[in-house]
């Protein structure tokens, strides 16, 4: 009970609204660098490659302006979800039409000892299918409110 499942998985420093970035590479680079700066990653290049590799297998844009790139590597120090919202929707890949404006980047260690973290991440992913929840993420202008919204997910 006392243990908070979402402890540190989401942090205010990892929520960025009003980004002017407009392509997948720049967005992923930006978030990965930020994750490194906030001590979620030991090595940003290794993690970046893992995320890009996953994108190349199957792009993670899932419709409704959302993409959830993710990577699972040993360089992840602490599981995390970062949120970046751009001012304008952009094409997630050159090949496909899918437009994206909300990017959730997820990082987990290869061997995760914490099931609770994983549970939290899976619950948050599910919530993204909830229209009302998505609408708030798209329109809310106060990053603190977004933080609270993401943090309020129950597992």
């Amino acid at each position, binding site marked *: 009970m006392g243990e908070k499942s979402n402890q540190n998985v989401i942090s205010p420093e990892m929520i960025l609204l009003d980004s002017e970035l407009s392509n997948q590479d720049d967005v992923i680079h930006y978030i990965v660098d930020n994750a490194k700066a906030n001590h979620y990653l030991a090595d940003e290049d290794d993690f970046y490659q893992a995320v890009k590799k996953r994108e190349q*297998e199957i792009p993670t844009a899932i419709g409704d302006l959302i993409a959830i790139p993710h990577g699972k590597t040993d360089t992840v120090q602490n599981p995390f979800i970062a949120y970046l919202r751009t001012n304008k929707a952009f094409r997630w890949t050159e090949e496909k039409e899918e437009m994206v404006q909300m990017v959730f980047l*997820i990082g987990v260690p290869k061997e995760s000892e914490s099931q609770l973290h994983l549970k939290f991440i899976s619950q948050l992913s599910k919530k993204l299918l909830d229209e009302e929840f998505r609408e708030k993420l798209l329109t809310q202008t106060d990053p603190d409110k977004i933080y609270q919204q993401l943090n309020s997910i129950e597992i």
Partner: protein
Amino acid sequence: MKIVAVTACPTGVAHTYMAQEAIEKECRKRGFEVKVETQGSMGVEGELEQFEVDEADAVILAVAIGIDGEERFEAKEAEGKVISVDPGEAIKHPAEVIDKAVNL
């Protein structure tokens, strides 16, 4: 209508569970009975027993990797009651996926 499904993706952190949610949601909307087994980073959850598979009208395998216990679906496969889709497809177009399953 009774539907069972397995969802699994390479990393098993997000798509596995989103596909589960999308399938469950669409089935509930239609008043179908549904059970979804997830094979993700938290291991196997909601494991389907053989009798549950046997009782189902259709099986949806929303998987992008090899899964454990595939033999459970062999009989259904032989009856032509199994569809395989990418997890992303189940997330993006759950209605179409369920339509396909219903029309098997």
